[in-house]
């Protein structure tokens, strides 16, 4: 079942079209990656989802209903540009933002206490935010994002600005929330950071969808028939022919490009004659490579048009 469904969403600012008819589906309980270069329209889309800005046309469904103001209490949002009240005490501040997301004071207080205990932050309760280190402030910001136990969590460039320790904490915590059924939407231009966690991705460029789907499908669609072969014996040498070309070699470690529609098994059979094979694997492109290639292709298309 899809938790977020978007149909033909359009938004322009001042003559510039930020979203040119975007459609997408985020499955309930999945981790969804919204990828794209800066200026692709990611933040515009996320702000529309949070009802911060209005859209020109299209439909958005939230958990089966047309998106309304009442739904924002069920969304947790970590904006790219983060900031809190510097002069406000930590405990008070988390409670305040929880109340803004619709919790009663009592409930907000109880959950703040519980979460601060879990993250070992109880001693900060009466400290002003500005008295905390940058890393601690990031933890407070994260707590505020999840305090109201939202059904949908939206992270805009989540890993920028977080130090490595907090990044790991963030990933683990997100994984845990996802296991409990929270749907998660990442928006980022740093592919490597989400490659390991996302179930599905959507690639956005110039306000348009370039490709989307489950991450493995996307990779298989973009595979370039490259195989990695490692021989047991350092003296074994692969000899290339018209079909099997050496793309890269490092001692007995080969990357082979298969040029025609040959099967992997035929490569394996061919390679076996040169020695004992220790490792054989198809090399799938990284998201980064797919991303760069697709964006370049789509930009090229735009120019041709």
């Amino acid at each position, binding site marked *: 079942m899809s938790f977020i469904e978007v149909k033909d969403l359009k938004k322009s600012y001042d003559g510039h079209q930020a979203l040119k008819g975007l459609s997408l589906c985020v499955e309930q309980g999945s981790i969804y990656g919204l990828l794209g270069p800066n200026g692709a329209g990611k933040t515009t889309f996320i702000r529309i989802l949070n009802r911060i800005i209005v859209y020109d046309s299209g439909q958005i469904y939230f958990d089966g209903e047309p998106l309304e103001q009442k739904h924002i209490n069920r969304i947790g949002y970590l904006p790219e540009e*983060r*900031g809190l009240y510097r002069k*406000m005490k930590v405990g008070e501040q988390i409670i305040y933002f929880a109340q*803004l997301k619709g919790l009663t004071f009592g409930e907000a207080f109880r959950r703040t206490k519980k979460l601060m205990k879990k993250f070992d932050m109880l001693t900060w309760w009466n400290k002003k935010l500005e008295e905390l280190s940058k890393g601690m402030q990031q933890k407070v910001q994260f707590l505020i994002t999840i305090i109201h136990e939202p059904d949908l969590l939206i992270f805009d460039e989540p890993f920028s600005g977080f130090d490595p320790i907090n990044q790991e904490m963030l990933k683990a915590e997100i994984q845990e929330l996802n296991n409990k059924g929270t749907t998660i939407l990442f928006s980022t231009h740093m592919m490597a950071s989400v490659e390991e966690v996302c179930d599905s991705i959507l690639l956005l460029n110039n306000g348009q969808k370039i490709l989307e789907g489950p991450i493995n499908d996307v990779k298989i669609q973009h595979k370039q028939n490259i195989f990695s072969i490692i021989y047991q014996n350092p003296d074994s040498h692969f000899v290339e022919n018209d079909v099997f070309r050496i793309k890269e070699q490092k001692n007995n470690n080969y990357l082979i490009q298969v040029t025609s529609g040959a099967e992997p098994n035929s490569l394996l059979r061919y390679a076996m004659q040169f020695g004992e094979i220790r490792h054989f694997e198809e090399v799938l492109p990284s998201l980064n490579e797919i991303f760069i290639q697709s964006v370049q292709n789509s930009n090229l298309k735009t120019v041709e048009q």
Partner: protein
Amino acid sequence: MNSKWWLILKREYLFRVKKKSFILITLIMPILLASFVVLPVYLMNNANKKTYKVAVFDASNSLTFSDTKEIKFEQVGTNNMEQLKTQSEKKDYDAVLQVPKDLDHGEAVLYLLSDKDVKITDLVRSAYQQAIEQYRFKKYNVKPQLLAQIKAPAKLSVLKWTEKGATKSSVGVRIILATFGAVLLYFFMFLYGGLAMRSVMEEKVNRVVELIVSSVRPIELMFGKILAILFVALTQFVLWGVLTFLIIKSLGISEQNSSFMVQVNQALQMLKHVNIGLWIFSFLFFFLTGYLLYGSWFAAIGSAVDVETDAQQFVFPLTLPIIFAIIFMQPIIFNPDGQLAFWLSIIPFTSPIIMPVRISFGIGEAVMWWEYILSLILMILTVWGSLWATAKIFRMGILFYGKRPSYKDLWKWIKQK
């Protein structure tokens, strides 16, 4: 009440009134105000506990000086200035007065040890004047009572024709009322409107605003803030009033020994002739609408810029009408039913200051009822339109970073659906 704008209002209000600067200004202002009232009275009552002693060498031998609580005169037989100076230095005398032989043409001389004895100079001067007058009464054979009768003030009472017959004119208290109201409204719109702007800017600059508008509608954020600062201002005014009153009371300035209090009582008596109910209504009406008008525009400016210096170019034109109104307040007080008064009290950006000024001089007199009603209606319409337009600017402005928006940008934001 737990709606979201109420949460915004509560946080903003508590944050502002707990600030050190708020507490400081709230405490200092009454002390200043009270000292304006108390200090002159206090000085008058306590400064001249001392009785000055003046040595008089009267060469004419025909003057009588009358002693008072503050000054005593002692006739001395010697004209030896050296000796009198030494005696002065020994604190036997505070000053020495030398009266000439020929009282009609001669000149008396007062010898002092220091220039700072201003008080004693005044006292001696008036005592000498009195003594000379008595000498002249005798010389020209004039009875003092006769002179007093001649110099008795000619009584002139200023009356104003009304439907109920002639009543006492109250122009003095009306001027005070007009000035007081206008200055208060001026400060209120300027200072607290500016505070609304800075408050919005702070949240924009420290980037907390995106998190807030992902939880509440931008319009709730804007109104929450504007209303919070309205309450901050009211709190401050009430505290100023109460504290000033308490300070004056506790220093024991009661009605008998303060000429100021007598004046206040006289003014309060005169207020009976002013339609004070209407005046208070007008003041409160323009207080509220004026603040909403300027507060909403200040807040919109705060949302559109991210550095204080960029705000200046928008703040200047906005404050121009207020400054204009306060400059023309004086001429309007002297001519409250002129052309200038009429237009400035009708145009909504100046009317919050000028209409209360005119109302102080009486409805049906300085202001016609239709002018008054027209002014109120225009003000309500303008506030309504401003709130609508500024909410649109606010919604776009708070997420607009980087370059300084132009007037064209603001206009585009207003037009957006």
